[in-house]
């Protein structure tokens, strides 16, 4: 069996009620970023990513080689049925799953929680589902043209998010739009999956966008290798704290426009023991 070291970390955002979750299974991890219902504007609560993540971890443990998209589809269906969720009015969640075996490492992403694979050759593969971000960018461009709305700071961005909410809802879980775990089990089939030979991988980071925006937007830490290095030296908590502190230095989102000072953060790190030659 491949020797791995798994660590996980969570850090709540501005209001202290995190909707991000991370779960570790025997040979996999699940990272989720919950979204309160778009319509009506729901209360923040992490029950949905919590329930979905637990179900996913259960299925990963009971069926360690089953197709990841099947596992996701079934998990979404189970939670939707149990709580009679209504499409468009239910809480939603991104999903990132990384699973490893002796021969193969598999990744699955649905909406904007990426998985970063560090190769033994220094190369990096980022498994990312860009569809959510592409839809958001398109709607904001339209809103800028039509209504003159801009997103130059936190306040403007909040107004922009409110104004584009109905249009975004109309693109959720539909072909040509974006896919996310909600009340539509079929979204599981639309997750983006990939696999790698295990012996080419030295580490995996699965994170919510509260963490990836540190590297992508604030450049704190400045790169993914720097993020991995920091996580190895100071632990995953150290990585999350570093990004949180950068946000605290820009409380109103002037330098890095974002709707709230601190986004929720969750991450999992899988470190593969290097075979000694």
């Amino acid at each position, binding site marked *: 069996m491949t020797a791995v070291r798994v660590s996980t970390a969570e850090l709540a955002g501005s209001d202290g009620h995190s909707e991000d979750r991370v779960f570790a299974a025997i040979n996999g991890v699940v990272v989720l970023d919950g979204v309160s219902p778009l319509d009506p504007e729901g209360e923040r609560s992490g029950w949905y990513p919590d329930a979905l993540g637990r179900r996913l971890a259960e299925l990963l443990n009971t069926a360690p080689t089953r197709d990841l998209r099947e596992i996701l589809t079934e998990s979404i269906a189970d939670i939707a049925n149990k709580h009679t969720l209504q499409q468009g009015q239910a809480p939603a969640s991104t999903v990132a799953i990384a699973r490893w075996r002796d021969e193969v490492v598999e990744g699955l992403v649905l909406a904007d929680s990426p998985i970063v694979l560090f190769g033994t*050759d220094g190369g990096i593969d*980022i498994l990312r589902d860009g569809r959510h971000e592409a839809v958001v960018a398109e709607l904001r461009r339209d809103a800028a043209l039509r209504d003159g709305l801009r997103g130059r700071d936190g306040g403007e961005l909040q107004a922009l998010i409110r104004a584009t909410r109905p249009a975004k809802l109309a693109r959720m879980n539909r072909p040509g739009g974006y896919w996310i775990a909600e009340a539509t089990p079929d979204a599981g*089939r639309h997750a983006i999956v990939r696999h790698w030979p295990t012996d080419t991988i030295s580490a995996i980071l699965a994170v919510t966008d509260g963490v990836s925006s540190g590297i992508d937007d604030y450049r704190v830490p400045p790169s993914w290798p720097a993020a991995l290095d920091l996580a190895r030296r100071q632990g995953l908590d150290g990585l999350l704290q570093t990004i949180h502190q950068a946000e605290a230095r820009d409380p109103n989102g002037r330098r890095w426009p974002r709707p709230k000072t601190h986004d929720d953060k969750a991450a999992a790190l899988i470190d593969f023991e290097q075979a000694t030659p």
Partner: protein
Amino acid sequence: VQITYASEATPGQANEDYVVAGPAWVVVLDGATKRAEVEDGCVHGAGWLVRTLAGQLAHGLAMELAEPLVDLLAEAIKATCSAHADTCDLANPDSPSATVVMLRDHAATVDWLVLADSPLVLDNDGQIRVVVDDRTAHLPSYTTEAVRAARNSPDGFWVASTRPEAAYEAVTGTAPTSRVRRAGLFSDGAARLVERYGTTDWPGLLDLLDTHGPQALIARTRDAERVETDVERAGRRGKRHDDATAVLVRFTS
């Protein structure tokens, strides 16, 4: 960065591969040849599709913005759709399609994108990394109907055609420029020495490209195609010849 390439049609046919490059980026496209019995709803064809996509991608890459390659590709597909939405039936599932492989050196970082079966081979400090999108190699069936159903569908494979979201299904990666020595981009017609004939492996193909150049690599592929017997061909998928495009990217430190 030094970029060298060659692109050659199937003997006697129009080339449906295309290559476009700038000082520090390159794109290879391979248009899918239409089967004679298929009605694709397009007045242009695969050659037009790869040239239009190439032009759109070149536009995005030449701007040297930091935009991710997947976004550039999604935009290029969208623009290509608008370019023939008035004349062609974009809802036709057999609308012309193409594979895409892109490589860019920007801000001390090399990033790449592979969509469908045009492979990329990287030499990172002597370690060879092969980037393939092998979804087209694992279809349950290759009849016209089965391929149509699998094209741009979650359980099948993804290509650049009429759906911009296909871009987000591409295989992507990145490496610090300081680590990358060489890269080879191939349409599947130029990867046959590895994938079809097994006369060499991926490191061997990259060495051949580096030592003898893209033209010679294609010439050797044609030689192998000519000596393939009917019995051998019956056991493999695909035609005797194929359009072939090979690109060598050399990084000088």
